[in-house]
């Protein structure tokens, strides 16, 4: 297994995602002899995981079962240990598309944070691209390096422990794209410009507050960036369910066109239910609450020098 390449069977040292049920997953590092406790019982790595096919059902000691899944950046995003606030898949997807990322792209990122976006970038730019990621927090940088190694993507990434606003990305004229997720992105715009290729490239900055966006856009304009565009994407997850709508009782009628007929007119199944009738229909309801804001995404193009 690797985050940039699928494999069929689980091997020692792999990171697998244990799927316990809807919205309940956990990442596990496979080690022979090790055990993992779940609410359905224990999973013994040697017998239950190693040599099994990804996606297979594993029966735990208490008789319950779980699925073991191949890791993907998307699964990792919902399972990773948070060291910072992270970027989620909806924003990541748009960042990837709008930065024109593809195999071979050279990308700069700061800060590395918990590595949620980093894994996605690595997946997309492999096997010929490279990620230069800058994290000023020594412990986080160290942890990221370790994770990249465990996930077998360290050949595609360079982690630098420095302050991007003061010292930049540590490279000049090689990047196709730059991504900024820092409190004061406007202070890193010069460094971003320097890191990008002479022939130009794309930039994205993620900021939760509009004042940050305002200052960033100003800095981008002053540094000759073009096509500056700020947007926001919100994801709605719909809950698929059957809803039952009772039919009102108008009392007995003279002719035979009764409410039962009406129900079938509604082209749905009617269920006689202790005298009253109701209609069951399949629908999808939006959640009662949803993430209303993550951050503004500001994109820009660096023109040719």
């Amino acid at each position, binding site marked *: 297994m690797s985050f940039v390449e699928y494999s069929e069977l689980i091997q020692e040292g792999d990171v697998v995602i244990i799927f316990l049920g809807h919205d309940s997953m956990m990442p596990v590092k496979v080690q022979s002899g090790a055990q993992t406790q779940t609410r359905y019982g224990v999973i013994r790595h040697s017998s239950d995981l190693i040599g099994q096919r990804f*996606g297979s059902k594993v029966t735990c000691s208490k008789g319950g079962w779980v699925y073991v899944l191949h890791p993907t950046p998307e699964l990792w995003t919902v399972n990773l240990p948070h060291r910072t606030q992270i970027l989620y*898949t909806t924003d990541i997807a748009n960042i990837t*598309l709008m930065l024109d990322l593809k195999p071979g792209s050279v990308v700069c990122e700061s800060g590395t944070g918990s590595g949620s976006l980093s894994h996605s970038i690595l997946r997309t730019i492999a096997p010929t691209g490279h990620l230069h990621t800058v994290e000023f927090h020594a412990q986080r940088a160290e942890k990221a390096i370790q994770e990249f190694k465990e996930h077998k993507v360290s050949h595609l990434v360079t982690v630098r422990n420095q302050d991007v606003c003061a010292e930049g990305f540590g490279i000049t004229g090689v990047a196709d794209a730059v991504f900024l997720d820092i409190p004061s992105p406007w202070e890193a715009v010069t460094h971003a410009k320097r890191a990008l290729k002479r022939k130009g490239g794309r930039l994205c900055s993620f900021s939760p507050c509009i004042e940050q966006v305002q200052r960033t856009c100003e800095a981008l304009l002053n540094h000759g960036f073009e096509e500056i565009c700020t947007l926001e994407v919100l994801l709605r997850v*719909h809950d698929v369910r059957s809803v039952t709508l009772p039919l009102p009782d108008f009392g007995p009628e003279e002719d035979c066109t009764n409410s039962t007929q009406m129900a079938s007119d509604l082209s749905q199944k009617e269920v006689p239910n202790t005298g009253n009738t109701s209609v069951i229909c399949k629908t999808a309801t939006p959640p009662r609450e949803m993430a209303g804001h993550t951050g503004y995404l500001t994109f820009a193009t660096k*023109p040719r020098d």
Partner: protein
Amino acid sequence: MAECVYDSDAESAISYGDYVVLKRGDVFKSVQVENKKKVIFEKQWFFLDNAVGQLYGTMFEIEAGGSLKPKAVKRAGDSLDSKEAGQDNRHIVDDGRSQKLTRDDIETLKEQGLKGQEIVQQLIDNSTTFKDKTEFAQAKYIKKKKKKYESDITVLKPSTRLLAMMYHGREPGKICHLRYDTLAQVLTLGNIHAGSKIIVFETCAGLVLGSVMERMGGFGSVIQMYPGGGPTRAGMESFGFPSHFHETLHEFPLCKVNALLAGTLDLSEKDTDSQANGSRLGGSDSSQETSGVSEEKNSEPQNMEVSVDPQEEMKRAEREKLREQRAQEKKVKMEEKRKKLASAAALLEGRNADGLVIASRFHPCPVLMGLLKFVAPSRPFVVYCQYREPLIECYTKLREQGGAISLRLTDSWLRHYQVLPNRTHPVLLMSGGGGYLLSGTTVATDTAKARNQHKSEEPAAKRLKLDEISSSCDSSAKAISVV
């Protein structure tokens, strides 16, 4: 490794045959650069010949006769700013006479070959109210006029971003109203990356196919399932991929899926089939031939009677040769087609694809159920549909059938912002809908067990588990299973 790579400009020069994206303002158009080809874009026509040899990203202005000229310095427009400005609009009256230039005057200016910027300056100079407008209103006025009269065109290298925005802006009907942020979700949720084997079924003009291919970078394989007579690929062609990308692209007709699944897909049968096809095609050919022959036969006796024309003989021989050649070509083509089908079938038969992407105008449910069988366990799949209800059906069906987890029905909202000093707000107009997605992950199925579960003969613990996995929404699972 990356540190030493310096981009040479040689590879980023526009040349004949390239597919490019033209940009004017926020409007895009995809064209192929051809010798002396007239391009019509935003009510203007021009030739791209002068762009050849220039670098991608160059801005051009259109000169008389439709030739392009690289624009020297950008940002000349700043000189239009006037120092004088009003505070508010209490004294500005709309009498329709603030612009002293008439329509005809402006037309005359245009005919004189005045540059866009100069026309805008003329409009400003002849506007009696301009200096009374607020600074912001002046900026807005200039921006609006610039948009109308300045017609600079930028030539860009195609990318998913540009083509997806172009299709969404120009021809959303052709791509089932798939908005670019939704396409972004498709590519990410599908974990599309180099080295994998992806099945794509789309009727989005080839845009989705192209975007998948871009993300694979020529590594791995893409199997395009197509309805009808052949795959649509115009959108994919617009990406201008290098030829080795095309070697990773395979195609398989949807109408042969059942045969493949049943193991009755006979490739030699395909041979006879294509022969049947061929003979149908050739049928018309051969009927022509025979009619031709009979004509000749008819004329022959006459010829014989008069004299044998050696020239006529030669012509006939030539025709005969040409016919043979054509038949040979057809045979080669058929053989190629058969080989292509065989290779696609071989890729599918492993039933170990790494992903499935569906985005079509067809009902997604049968497509998903049919094609999911070719996907390996623990792989993502994504289904796009312009409407929500068909995806609800897919969701229900998958729950019933099993083999998929983490099912999510989603849609996204996209909001653009105007960011300007003291004038920051959401853009007034936003897209009403970019379609819906159903995504999930495949898992191994043990069909016998699944059937048992439906007959509710499972031990309590497992059923409990099943219910839990079936997410909150399946409290009325029984009602569903009746459907």
